[in-house]
């Protein structure tokens, strides 16, 4: 990464959410890399950017189309790359014509000077990398947003070479591994489709069962079914939807409605309140295993102490399965990995023995394969081997500011805490320096509402309200406020909306309409 000459940071605040990734970016900056930041908040990186595009939440596609139009209009595209590696540019070219400066400025709030400068900087760079975060995906147009970013990278040919490409920063330690290994309704481990008969047969034979052809329900859909009363039993492994899912009223209703709920957890959470049985979980220090990081690097987790409750999650699941009449018996997690390697081609060459020497990046198809650092160096995943441009339209957020709810709430993380906070709030010192939730509000909006720093305020949306102290800061732009979801004492997701990306199912955490009012009783 230090070789990059231009960093294009899109909807990502790595100094807070991915501090160690940010150190690599900082190193590139010290080596003279240029920095473009797209973020509605004035983050650490935005303050230091060569160009900061402070777009309105939900206007990613309009901005990206605008950038691509400028690049094509000026002939800044990488013609050689487009000819050799892509298809369908004409359709995109036609679509972006609809995104002239007037329209893009109006939709995004970003001035044309900044758009031209960013387009020039990125397209003319030798080695430019786009780093994007949840500011791209946590919208109802999340999937399209990511595709629009791919359009931009492809138009400029900034992909498939070292120090270029698109890097998506994954939020949780093993979010990559958890999608790799099959807890998904439409794919078996290793992104192998349940609709594919050969795949079903392979797993069916190995597991000695018949795998259903029809994809299952996504977690949010299961909760919808619970509310309807048609869903009867859920097992939740180490997750806290009653704090971290959006639109919590709906989630609570679902968890109340389901007949039988089992939750395996380290701590009592908002979700365990609804459980019929709570099973103790084991922390990462209490078990062997592997995590796969955002760059697809599979690394060992090693047991430092015995599980406090006597068993790790994998042992518990094996016991339940055995009691239900499907015996599962593994000597240790290494044996589970051996089974994974035999069924999942991208993990084909992985074994604990090899991982002792250090992590390996998948795809790693066999025992002699060294792993893969850069994807798509010669071919893209599509059957033609070419990358296809997608013509995309601005759709905007599911809920926008209006007279009754005039501000847009953006939710996210801060450096000191993590997700539902159950771990960090119980870490000495961290609980002292950041003891409670605060809503970040711009000095302009604060003045308009008569709110001073540390005042108690009530933040309300169409779904609920939360009482917190205000933090008046120019990190928030006029019109936007920001909150995290780390505190059980202020459930930010009581406010967030039910809108989600119809393709990926990702909720629109990054944008909902709220009202902020001064509130005195609690002070």
């Amino acid at each position, binding site marked *: 990464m230090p070789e990059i000459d231009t960093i294009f940071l899109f909807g990502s605040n790595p100094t807070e959410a991915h501090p160690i990734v940010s150190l690599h970016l900082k190193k590139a900056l010290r080596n003279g890399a240029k920095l473009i930041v797209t973020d509605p908040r004035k983050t650490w990186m935005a303050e230091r950017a060569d160009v900061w595009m402070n777009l309105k939440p939900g206007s990613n596609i309009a901005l990206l189309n605008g950038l691509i139009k400028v690049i094509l209009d000026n002939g800044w595209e990488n013609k050689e790359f487009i000819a050799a590696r892509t298809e369908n540019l004409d359709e995109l070219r036609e679509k972006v014509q609809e995104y002239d400066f007037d329209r893009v400025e109006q939709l995004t709030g970003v001035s044309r000077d900044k758009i031209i400068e960013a387009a020039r900087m990125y397209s003319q760079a030798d080695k430019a990398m786009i780093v994007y975060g949840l500011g791209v995906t946590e919208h109802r147009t999340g999937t399209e947003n990511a595709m629009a970013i791919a359009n931009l990278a492809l138009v400029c040919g900034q992909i498939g070479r070292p120090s270029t490409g698109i890097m998506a920063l994954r939020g949780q330690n093993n979010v990559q591994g958890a999608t790799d290994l099959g807890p998904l309704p439409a794919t078996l481990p290793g992104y192998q489709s349940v609709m594919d008969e050969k795949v079903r047969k392979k797993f069916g034979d190995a*597991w000695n069962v018949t795998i259903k052809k029809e994809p299952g329900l996504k977690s949010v859909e299961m909760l919808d079914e619970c509310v309807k009363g048609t869903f009867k039993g859920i097992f939740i492994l180490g997750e806290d939807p009653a704090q971290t899912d959006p639109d919590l009223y709906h989630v609570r209703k679902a968890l109340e409605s389901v007949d039988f709920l089992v939750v395996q957890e380290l701590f009592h959470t908002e979700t365990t309140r609804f459980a019929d049985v709570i099973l103790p979980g084991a922390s990462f220090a209490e078990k062997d295993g592997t995590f796969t990081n955002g760059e697809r690097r599979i690394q060992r987790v090693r047991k430092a102490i015995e599980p406090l409750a006597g068993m790790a999650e994998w042992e518990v699941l094996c016991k339940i399965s055995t009691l239900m009449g499907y015996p599962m018996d593994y000597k240790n997690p290494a044996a589970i990995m051996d089974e994974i390697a035999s069924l999942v081609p991208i993990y084909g060459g992985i074994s604990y023995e090899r991982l002792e020497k250090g992590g390996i990046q998948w795809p790693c198809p066999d025992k002699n394969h060294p792993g893969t650092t850069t994807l798509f160096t010669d071919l893209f995943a599509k059957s033609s081997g070419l990358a296809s441009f997608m013509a995309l339209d601005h759709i905007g957020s599911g809920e926008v500011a209006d007279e009754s709810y005039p501000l847009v709430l953006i939710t996210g993380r801060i450096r000191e805490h993590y997700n539902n906070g159950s771990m960090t709030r119980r870490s000495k010192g961290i609980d002292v320096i950041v003891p409670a939730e605060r809503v970040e509000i711009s000095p302009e909006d604060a003045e308009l509402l008569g709110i001073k720093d540390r005042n108690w305020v009530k933040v309300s949306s169409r779904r609920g309200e939360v009482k917190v102290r205000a933090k008046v800061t120019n990190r928030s732009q006029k019109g936007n406020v920001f909150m995290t979801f780390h505190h059980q004492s202020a459930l930010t997701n009581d406010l967030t909306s039910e809108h989600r990306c119809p393709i990926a199912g990702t909720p629109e955490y990054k944008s909902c309409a709220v009202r902020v009012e001064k509130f005195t009783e609690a002070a």
Partner: protein
Amino acid sequence: MDQKLNMKINGREVHFLRGQTVLEVCREHEIYVPTMCHDERLQPYGACRLCIVEVAGVPKPLTSCTTPATENMVVTTESPRLTRLRKTIIELLLSNHPNDCMCCEASGNCDLQEMAYLYGASLDRFPGEKWALPIKEDNPFITFEPNKCIVCGRCTRICNEVVMAGTIDMTSRGFTAMPDTAFSKPRSLQNCEFCGQCVSACPTGALTNRKSRGLGRSAEVEKVKTTCAYCGTGCNFFLMVKDGKVIGVESDYNAPVNQGNLCIKGRYGYDFIHSKDRITTPLIKEGDGFREASWDEALELVASQFKQIIKEHGPDTVGGFSSSRCTNEENYILAKWIRTAVGTNNVDNCARV
């Protein structure tokens, strides 16, 4: 492009690449050169002078950390003169050091202690004035014992060069030079990220992790290399374990992703592990609350309830939520359990939310 060049170290022919320093070439070929102010995460600094080597044709020793390797260079890393100079350097450092290793938190994990031992340094060769500054413990994470500081600048450089936080810098001059915050203000979120990078860079006991103090020193603890359980970056570190308890986190400087760097959560977010609030026994709902149960009872109940639901309503009314916080193996087992013992594709993880 990266043409291999030749040089000789201690009579041995070695290859190197243009741009490498003499120290880097030595380290690459596992030739020991003592260092104190050097940290691979930082720019070469040349302050401590311990890494001096002799270069043929140059009358005085050169600091290997700041000297670029050149074609046909002839280097000697050990000689009576170098040993004498290094010993004197250490004795000068010890002249203003508390030398209280028996009570020091960093004992066993201290470059100064190790070097003093290695070179047989005398503790009182240069008697003179000593600092008598108070310990600074103005925040929950980082303890600063200024009397143990050797002013190598590793802490201030990592704070400014790598983290770019600008929390501490060298203040004052000469004998009173010392790393400190601006205006000596207490560390708070106003001026510090509490990443503890300064602690990880300190070669002595001057900067230590406050939460681990008094719980066990290097020789008594077991170090278990593992991967962080917070964000998706995949940093490695060592969990420090004593008597079945995790007492702290220490950097793993060889980690491919983070090279020993960590953030506040990775370095200080571990004590939830032994929190009193941990659920340590299965719990079954009873009335408005929960009652404790044995594993056998709880698992029997879970298995029989799921079996009953499947029998009455079919497997597609049951589902599993997996966790991005759990291991690959656990995610695989959950997906397998739902698709075999339960018999449905209703399984998802929290990646999308």
